[in-house]
């Protein structure tokens, strides 16, 4: 297990991306400015848009950063880079990954093991460890593109592990901390909420698994509530005291940013946009619409702005919220019939995936929130492994446009091949047999064709200059097909389990 962890240290690369500047800026802001100014500062375009606990985290980091290079902590030094800065930031990611490694170890302990002798490579816990630690998406996003996701996902996985081990209070504490570090985890908060309420506050179930109202334990509810409130108070407290709450909230939830990110995350709205565009082009061709009446500029120009759809009805934030809520209604199944921590995990994944599918201004990196916890389920059940392979491969491929320079191309291709090859062969060996049907295999092979098309053929063709967004569009639409398909399958499997439980009861 230790050998696998060393590989993350290999990611010491001299590459640069915009997120570097983002974090450098935050280091500067938290270090040089008083607390009251943190959420008002806007010298740089990358304003502080994570909750306060993360700001405190950056603050503590900045104290270490002082020793590396003082210049990076001056707010005015926009786009400041020096070898020391880069070294420090990369080291900080590597060091905070220790949390992630610990969490993986804890998860592996909770994985069920089959009887029978296997060599090291065949043990489920080793496979799980490898799948998590070498997760291509995490490697790419954290170490190359630069973010602190390893640390954050470490906390998430640790909280999941604690629930699997039955230590619910710790799990809840970890999750609230996590929520206050990065509010994107609101996506999965409902799963936590319902699970904890149902399984923890009601200490017993009826024989058929439904709610026994009488066993409600107010003590536990109060314990949970106090955890949530105290952590929230710790992080938000200073800002509430200063009356800055609206400002903080507006920074955290920038609804002005548009339905889709610059690069469409592969979710339902990508398909929606595609259909819209296709219809508009068709309409123009068939002379049904006037070109002048259509809104100018494409949605994939690479910029983040608000746009209106031309033909299909425009989508507003509230619509996305409703869609998301509808899609995660299935969570109520754990209300009716809880299946312990594993059922909770499954709902968590469905929640994360549902919010990814229907959310407002979703980043493609959010797919990791579904993939990583899903790895735990994948090493335990055959059907899950099949869905997992589909989801990971498509999800990881959709991260490719994050690294667009030619120098990074071999790295991302090699790492992707490495991870895909490993996940396929190890899961195949674990479950003894093929996990995907031919249609799925063809789809995945199609990814190779898309890659060659986008990275090799297209740039050499004459359309590169007139329609530069086409590779992005193709990637995102193709991947969203895969992601949607995985989502539907996961949903179906959850409903089916719900159905079989009902049957059992009858």
């Amino acid at each position, binding site marked *: 297990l230790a*050998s696998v962890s060393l590989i993350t240290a290999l990611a010491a690369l001299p590459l640069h991306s915009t997120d570097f500047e983002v974090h450098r800026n935050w280091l500067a802001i938290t270090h040089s400015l008083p607390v009251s100014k943190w959420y008002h500062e806007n010298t740089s375009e990358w304003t502080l848009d994570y909750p306060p606990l993360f700001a405190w985290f950056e603050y503590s980091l900045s104290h270490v950063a002082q020793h590396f290079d003082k210049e990076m902590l001056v707010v005015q030094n926009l786009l400041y880079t020096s070898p020391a800065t880069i070294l420090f930031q990369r080291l900080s990611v590597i060091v905070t990954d220790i949390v992630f490694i610990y969490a993986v170890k804890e998860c592996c302990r909770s994985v069920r093991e089959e009887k029978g002798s296997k060599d090291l490579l065949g043990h489920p816990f080793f496979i799980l460890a490898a799948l998590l630690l070498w997760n291509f998406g995490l490697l790419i996003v954290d170490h190359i593109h630069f973010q602190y996701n390893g640390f954050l996902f470490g906390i998430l996985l640790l909280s999941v592990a604690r629930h699997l081990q039955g230590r619910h209070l710790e799990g809840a504490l970890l999750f609230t901390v996590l929520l206050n570090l990065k509010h994107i985890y609101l996506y999965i908060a409902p799963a936590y909420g319902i699970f904890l309420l149902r399984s923890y506050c009601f200490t017993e179930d009826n024989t058929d698994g439904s709610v026994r109202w009488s066993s409600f334990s107010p003590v536990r509810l109060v314990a949970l509530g106090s955890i949530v409130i105290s952590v929230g108070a710790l992080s938000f407290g200073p800002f509430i005291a200063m009356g800055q709450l609206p400002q903080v909230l507006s920074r955290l939830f920038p609804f002005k940013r548009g339905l889709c990110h610059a690069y469409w995350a592969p979710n339902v709205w990508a398909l929606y946009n595609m259909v819209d565009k296709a219809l508009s082009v068709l309409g123009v061709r068939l002379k049904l619409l006037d070109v002048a009446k259509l809104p100018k500029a494409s949605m994939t120009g690479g910029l983040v702005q608000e746009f209106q759809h031309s033909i299909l009805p425009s989508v507003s934030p509230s619509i996305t919220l409703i869609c998301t809520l509808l899609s995660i209604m299935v969570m109520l199944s754990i209300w009716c019939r809880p299946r312990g921590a594993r059922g909770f995990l499954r709902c968590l994944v469905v929640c994360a995936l549902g919010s990814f599918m229907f959310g407002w201004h979703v980043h493609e990196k959010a797919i990791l929130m579904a993939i990583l916890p899903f790895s735990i389920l994948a090493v335990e059940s055959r059907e899950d492994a099949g869905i997992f392979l589909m989801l990971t491969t498509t999800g990881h491929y959709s991260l490719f446009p994050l690294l667009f320079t030619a120098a990074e191309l071999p790295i991302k291709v*090699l790492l992707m091949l490495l991870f895909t090859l490993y996940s396929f062969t190890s899961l195949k060996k674990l479950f003894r047999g093929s996990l995907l049907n031919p249609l799925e295999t063809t789809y995945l092979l199609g990814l190779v064709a898309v890659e060659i098309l986008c990275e090799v053929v297209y740039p050499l063709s004459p359309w590169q200059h007139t329609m530069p967004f086409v590779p992005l569009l193709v990637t995102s639409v193709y991947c969203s097909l895969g992601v949607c398909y995985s989502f539907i399958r996961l949903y179906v499997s959850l409903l089916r389990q719900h159905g079989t439980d009902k049957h059992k009861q009858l």
Partner: protein
Amino acid sequence: MENWSLVSICVLFGLTARWAVSLNSYSGAGKPPMFGDYEAQRHWQEVTYNLPVHEWYFNTTDNNLNYWGLDYPPLTAYHSLLCAHVAKLINPDWVELHASRGHESYGHKLFMRATVLVADLLIYIPAVVLYSFYLSEGSNKKKVFLCILLYPGLILIDYGHFQYNSISLGLALWGVVVLGLGWDVLGSLAFVLSLNYKQMELYHSLPFFCYLLGKCFKQGLAGRGLFLLVKIAVTVLVTFALCWLPFLSDPGQILQVVHRLFPVGRGLFEDKVANTWCSLNVLIKIKTILSTDTQLYISLTTTLLAILPSSIKLLMKPTLWQFKLALVNSSLAFFLFSFQVHEKSILLPALPVCLLLNDLPLPAIWFLQASTFSMLPLFLKDGLLVPYVVTSLAFLFFSIYLLSALEHCSEDKLRLGPYRRLLICIVRRYGYLSNCINKDHFYFSITAMAGLSFMSVALAPPAQLPDLFPLLVSVFSYLHFLGLLLYFNIVQIAEPPQSVRKNQKKSN
């Protein structure tokens, strides 16, 4: 896990490590007017593409030999020509005569790195695959494969400092593998090609020669042996002729090329090298005391003396095991005692030592780590500190963990057993040497290397001794190399007769 998937994963992993290193800086980056080896390779592409063959090695108005003149044999020139053709297709500016001097750009760096990767993939890596799976014994095949692929020295020099060692070393390895499989003629062909790529492969030539000659002797000089000898000789001569074809028309050409390949005017050593003469220079300034001719003779005699025992043993007993050991001994002896040795030449002994990873894990890992460490001043000059640290740590970690090196240092495993019985009666105090290779010394050595590396980076040397740290590094490495040369020689020469060795193998 099935073989093919594990092999692919190892290859992918090795490739990722290589490309990750290649994203770093290269030799002479941003350092006009001479730049470094990167610019040298680019210049050779320019020269071979634009000038006719008979001008490649000569000093003409178009070809200034002082500015990175071609000083490798013709195969390098042909390879540069091939790369130049590709470069011309992508961006002609890269190989414009005169105008492209000192050209440095993002695209060009990618192109050059890609050429190294392609060469590696086509030549070196398949050779390593074949070696690991057909010629190494035991259950550790895939682990040996991964460890060989991860050897930091080759990765850092080829992908960081920028050279094409993987081609010459790969071809030599092909020679070894093919000879091991029993196809002598093809093996000699591969080696001649390797020799024609880089003349430093002469370090390996004596073992090849002795091994093949020994095999011919074994098969009887009167009959099949003679026939084999003739076949090999003909192959060698024909290959040489083919490689040197454009130059054969004019004896002046041949002389000039040889003159470029073996610059005897350059002195005993340049810079700090971990060999005898440089280390001796610390105590006695031999470079200034002795004349160039005397230096030449002394180094020649010492080298010959050093390689004599192992060559004779190989001649008498041409087996694969002896062959591997002889390769190590010969190239290491050349490195330590020869004329005008560069620190990069340590890669030549390092390749055969990689082949010994399975049989003698601890000494091999020790040597490989020492070889990477000895090149530290070069890496620091090129700005490759971080890749150096990461690859060394990764290599150490993987090899020690996968090959369980630290458990296998008993006398029996180190094949020193018979030695003790043989020589302990001759000189009692030599028995102490066999205790040198054990875990504690290894740990101490690695810690010392780490400490010296840290000091070289973090501390500034005192004003009177500006070369203190490179010197310390070379002397330290030199002591390691000398000790390991003695060890490998002893293992090769004191090898017990066939039957005992077979029993040892069975008990392993």
